[in-house]
Protein backbone atom coordinates (compact mmCIF):
# COMPACT_ATOMS: atom_id res chain seq x y z
CA UNK A 1 0.00 0.00 0.00
CA UNK A 2 1.23 3.49 -0.84
CA UNK A 3 1.75 5.98 1.97
CA UNK A 4 -1.46 8.03 2.25
CA UNK A 5 -1.30 11.75 1.58
CA UNK A 6 -2.77 13.70 4.54
CA UNK A 7 -3.85 16.50 2.17
CA UNK A 8 -5.96 14.14 0.03
CA UNK A 9 -9.53 13.56 1.16
CA UNK A 10 -12.49 11.51 -0.04
CA UNK A 11 -16.03 12.57 0.87
CA UNK A 12 -18.54 9.75 0.39
CA UNK A 13 -21.67 10.46 -1.63
CA UNK A 14 -23.85 11.09 1.43
CA UNK A 15 -21.37 13.70 2.68
CA UNK A 16 -21.13 15.44 -0.69
CA UNK A 17 -24.94 15.54 -0.85
CA UNK A 18 -25.18 16.82 2.74
CA UNK A 19 -22.72 19.59 1.92
CA UNK A 20 -25.22 20.77 -0.68
CA UNK A 21 -28.59 19.98 0.91
CA UNK A 22 -27.98 20.17 4.68
CA UNK A 23 -25.02 22.51 5.22
CA UNK A 24 -23.90 23.08 8.81
CA UNK A 25 -20.87 21.17 10.08
CA UNK A 26 -20.66 19.09 6.92
CA UNK A 27 -20.37 22.19 4.75
CA UNK A 28 -17.74 23.55 7.15
CA UNK A 29 -15.75 20.32 6.72
CA UNK A 30 -15.91 20.57 2.93
CA UNK A 31 -15.01 24.27 3.11
CA UNK A 32 -11.63 23.27 4.52
CA UNK A 33 -11.01 21.53 1.19
CA UNK A 34 -12.55 24.26 -0.99
CA UNK A 35 -10.57 27.09 0.59
CA UNK A 36 -7.13 25.47 0.30
CA UNK A 37 -5.80 24.85 -3.20
CA UNK A 38 -3.25 22.36 -1.85
CA UNK A 39 -5.92 20.09 -0.31
CA UNK A 40 -7.35 17.63 -2.83
CA UNK A 41 -10.84 16.13 -3.01
CA UNK A 42 -10.46 12.65 -4.48
CA UNK A 43 -13.47 11.09 -6.22
CA UNK A 44 -14.25 8.48 -8.84
CA UNK A 45 -17.07 8.63 -11.39
CA UNK A 46 -19.07 5.94 -9.51
CA UNK A 47 -18.88 8.08 -6.36
CA UNK A 48 -20.19 11.09 -8.28
CA UNK A 49 -22.88 8.88 -9.85
CA UNK A 50 -24.09 7.95 -6.35
CA UNK A 51 -24.10 11.57 -5.20
CA UNK A 52 -25.98 12.77 -8.28
CA UNK A 53 -28.60 10.02 -7.84
CA UNK A 54 -29.14 10.87 -4.16
CA UNK A 55 -29.46 14.61 -4.83
CA UNK A 56 -31.83 13.97 -7.75
CA UNK A 57 -33.98 11.69 -5.60
CA UNK A 58 -34.24 14.09 -2.66
CA UNK A 59 -34.09 17.47 -4.45
CA UNK A 60 -34.20 17.72 -8.25
CA UNK A 61 -32.29 16.51 -11.28
CA UNK A 62 -31.20 19.96 -12.47
CA UNK A 63 -29.61 20.79 -9.13
CA UNK A 64 -28.02 17.32 -8.99
CA UNK A 65 -26.45 17.81 -12.43
CA UNK A 66 -25.16 21.31 -11.61
CA UNK A 67 -23.72 20.02 -8.33
CA UNK A 68 -22.00 17.14 -10.09
CA UNK A 69 -20.46 19.55 -12.59
CA UNK A 70 -19.11 21.67 -9.75
CA UNK A 71 -17.60 18.69 -7.94
CA UNK A 72 -16.13 17.53 -11.22
CA UNK A 73 -14.25 20.86 -11.44
CA UNK A 74 -12.95 20.48 -7.88
CA UNK A 75 -12.04 16.82 -7.68
CA UNK A 76 -9.00 14.79 -8.59
CA UNK A 77 -10.54 11.97 -10.64
CA UNK A 78 -9.52 8.40 -9.92
CA UNK A 79 -10.65 5.06 -11.35
CA UNK A 80 -11.39 1.76 -9.63
CA UNK A 81 -13.19 -1.51 -10.35
CA UNK A 82 -16.96 -1.08 -10.61
CA UNK A 83 -17.70 -3.57 -7.83
CA UNK A 84 -15.59 -1.75 -5.21
CA UNK A 85 -17.01 0.60 -2.57
CA UNK A 86 -16.75 4.00 -4.31
CA UNK A 87 -15.41 5.94 -1.32
CA UNK A 88 -12.91 3.37 -0.04
CA UNK A 89 -11.74 2.52 -3.55
CA UNK A 90 -11.32 6.22 -4.35
CA UNK A 91 -9.15 6.55 -1.25
CA UNK A 92 -7.05 3.56 -2.29
CA UNK A 93 -6.64 4.79 -5.86
CA UNK A 94 -5.89 8.36 -4.79
CA UNK A 95 -3.74 7.63 -1.72
CA UNK A 96 -6.17 9.67 0.40
CA UNK A 97 -5.53 9.63 4.15
CA UNK A 98 -9.12 10.54 5.07
CA UNK A 99 -12.58 9.36 4.07
CA UNK A 100 -15.58 11.34 5.31
CA UNK A 101 -18.76 9.31 5.71
CA UNK A 102 -21.95 9.16 7.74
CA UNK A 103 -21.99 5.35 7.43
CA UNK A 104 -21.54 3.83 10.91
CA UNK A 105 -20.47 0.54 9.31
CA UNK A 106 -17.26 2.20 8.10
CA UNK A 107 -16.39 3.78 11.45
CA UNK A 108 -15.27 2.44 14.83
CA UNK A 109 -12.22 0.43 15.85
CA UNK A 110 -13.15 -2.92 14.27
CA UNK A 111 -14.19 -1.34 10.99
CA UNK A 112 -11.00 0.73 10.97
CA UNK A 113 -8.80 -2.34 11.41
CA UNK A 114 -10.64 -4.19 8.65
CA UNK A 115 -10.46 -1.25 6.25
CA UNK A 116 -6.79 -0.53 6.92
CA UNK A 117 -5.91 -4.14 6.08
CA UNK A 118 -6.86 -3.18 2.51
CA UNK A 119 -6.61 0.64 2.32
CA UNK A 120 -4.31 2.99 4.26
CA UNK A 121 -7.02 5.46 5.15
CA UNK A 122 -9.09 6.61 8.12
CA UNK A 123 -12.88 6.95 7.95
CA UNK A 124 -14.33 9.83 9.95
CA UNK A 125 -17.71 11.43 10.51
CA UNK A 126 -17.59 14.94 8.99
CA UNK A 127 -18.05 16.53 12.44
CA UNK A 128 -15.02 14.64 13.81
CA UNK A 129 -13.00 15.53 10.74
CA UNK A 130 -13.82 19.22 11.16
CA UNK A 131 -12.67 19.12 14.79
CA UNK A 132 -9.48 17.14 14.13
CA UNK A 133 -8.30 18.33 10.71
CA UNK A 134 -5.81 21.10 11.46
CA UNK A 135 -4.60 22.81 8.27
CA UNK A 136 -1.95 24.82 10.10
CA UNK A 137 -0.39 21.64 11.55
CA UNK A 138 -0.65 19.89 8.19
CA UNK A 139 1.03 22.67 6.22
CA UNK A 140 4.70 21.76 7.05
CA UNK A 141 4.06 18.30 5.57
CA UNK A 142 3.13 19.74 2.19
CA UNK A 143 4.76 23.20 2.03
CA UNK A 144 7.51 25.43 3.32
CA UNK A 145 7.54 28.43 5.63
CA UNK A 146 4.60 29.66 7.67
CA UNK A 147 1.08 28.39 7.05
CA UNK A 148 -0.27 30.83 4.45
CA UNK A 149 -3.92 30.42 5.42
CA UNK A 150 -6.85 29.86 3.06
CA UNK A 151 -5.99 30.76 -0.53
CA UNK A 152 -9.28 30.30 -2.41
CA UNK A 153 -12.87 31.49 -1.95
CA UNK A 154 -14.92 28.45 -0.80
CA UNK A 155 -18.07 29.94 -2.36
CA UNK A 156 -16.61 30.75 -5.80
Amino acid at each position, binding site marked *: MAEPNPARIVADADVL*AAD*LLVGGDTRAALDSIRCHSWVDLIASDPLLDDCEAVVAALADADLAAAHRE*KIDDLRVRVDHPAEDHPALASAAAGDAAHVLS*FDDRLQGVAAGVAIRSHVATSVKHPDAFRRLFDLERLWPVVGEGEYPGPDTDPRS
Partner: protein
Amino acid sequence: MTDSWRELFDRADDHDVAIDALQDALAERRDG
Protein backbone atom coordinates in the same frame (compact mmCIF):
# COMPACT_ATOMS: atom_id res chain seq x y z
CA MET B 1 -20.11 28.13 -17.16
CA THR B 2 -20.79 26.34 -13.89
CA ASP B 3 -22.66 27.87 -10.97
CA SER B 4 -20.61 29.12 -8.06
CA TRP B 5 -20.84 27.17 -4.81
CA ARG B 6 -22.75 30.14 -3.39
CA GLU B 7 -25.34 29.88 -6.17
CA LEU B 8 -25.65 26.13 -5.70
CA PHE B 9 -26.17 26.48 -1.96
CA ASP B 10 -28.80 29.19 -2.55
CA ARG B 11 -30.66 26.86 -4.95
CA ALA B 12 -30.40 24.01 -2.43
CA ASP B 13 -32.07 26.17 0.25
CA ASP B 14 -35.37 25.44 -1.50
CA HIS B 15 -35.12 21.83 -0.32
CA ASP B 16 -35.51 20.58 3.25
CA VAL B 17 -33.45 17.38 3.53
CA ALA B 18 -32.26 15.48 6.62
CA ILE B 19 -29.02 13.53 6.84
CA ASP B 20 -30.99 10.35 7.67
CA ALA B 21 -32.81 10.68 4.35
CA LEU B 22 -29.48 11.02 2.51
CA GLN B 23 -28.11 7.91 4.20
CA ASP B 24 -31.27 5.94 3.42
CA ALA B 25 -31.23 7.01 -0.23
CA LEU B 26 -27.57 6.08 -0.61
CA ALA B 27 -28.02 2.73 1.16
CA GLU B 28 -30.98 1.92 -1.05
CA ARG B 29 -28.97 2.72 -4.17
CA ARG B 30 -25.92 0.72 -3.10
CA ASP B 31 -27.52 -2.18 -1.25
CA GLY B 32 -30.79 -2.44 -3.14
